[in-house]
């Protein structure tokens, strides 16, 4: 029970700026991936609200991706991650660490718990475990690249000009 994905990226902004961009601007930097959609009606708009990560779907419904269990601004964020098709015994968890490195931040995402989702489950699309995790990890790299672009635009004072 120890499959995990670890993705790390240096971002040229302080841990607080990167953390705030992660949680406050997730609707801006998120890049939906059709292979890993949370619900059949996704993509919607991502948001951290009421101690949860949610996806606001186009039909007006709100899907709870997971509950936030750790919220340490500028340091650590931990939240659950479920797809709508998961059964109650399937759970994955995402831990995000924000580490000051020089004048920037090393942000690391660790996504674990995929062993609770059995191989035949629809969420895995028939991929062997390592291939599935690699594809999912590539998506996290893509997501962190989006986060970096957002955090940098905030850091440089571009503010909402980064919205698109």
């Amino acid at each position, binding site marked *: *029970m*120890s*499959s*995990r*994905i*670890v*993705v*790390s*990226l*240096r971002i040229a902004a302080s841990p607080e700026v990167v953390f705030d961009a992660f949680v406050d601007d997730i609707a801006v930097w998120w890049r939906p991936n059709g292979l890993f959609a949370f619900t059949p009606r996704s993509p919607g708009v991502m948001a951290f609200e009421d101690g949860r990560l949610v996806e606001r779907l186009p039909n007006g419904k709100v899907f709870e991706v997971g509950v936030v269990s750790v919220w340490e601004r500028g340091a650590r964020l931990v939240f659950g991650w479920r797809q709508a098709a998961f059964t109650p015994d399937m759970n994955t968890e995402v831990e995000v660490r924000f580490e000051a490195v020089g004048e920037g931040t*090393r942000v690391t995402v660790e996504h674990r718990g995929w*062993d609770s989702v059995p191989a035949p489950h629809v969420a895995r699309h028939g991929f062997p*475990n*390592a291939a599935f*995790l*690699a594809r999912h*990890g*590539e998506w996290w*790299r*893509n997501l962190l*690249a989006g986060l970096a672009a957002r955090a940098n635009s905030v850091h440089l004072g571009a503010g909402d000009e980064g919205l698109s």
Partner: protein
Amino acid sequence: MSNPAGLISAVTYRDPKAALAWLEAAFGFELVFLIEGEDASVAHAEMSHGASRVMIGGEWSPAHASPASIGGKTTQTIHIYIEGDVDAHCQTAAAAGAEIVEPPATQFYGARTYRCRDLEGHLWTVSADVETVSVEEMERRSGLKITVAKG
């Protein structure tokens, strides 16, 4: 994520997880991508140094072997370019267990370099430019004929 045109070496270890920790301690490489399977084995790993990356993997096919499995032989070596103090870098690597094969020395072409073996015998050369040397001066110092593409 799409990759721009470029080159990446994939380096083979018997124990890639130990290599990840060692390369961070010895050379300051940073883990940027790691996929671990059910048994916590390394399915895929990448580390970064500056704008470059290396992949770290196990002996996953009969064609892949660590130097530790083939009598210390290697068929390629990797050069690390740093912006900083080569001697201090060498001390850090040695403290992490690197075998220093050639201690730091300033080369005719204006770089200070050292060479070491890592925990499984891969050879790494570490280099920093310390002097700007003209091609004519390099030829005079070395006795070599040097051709540089006009960029």
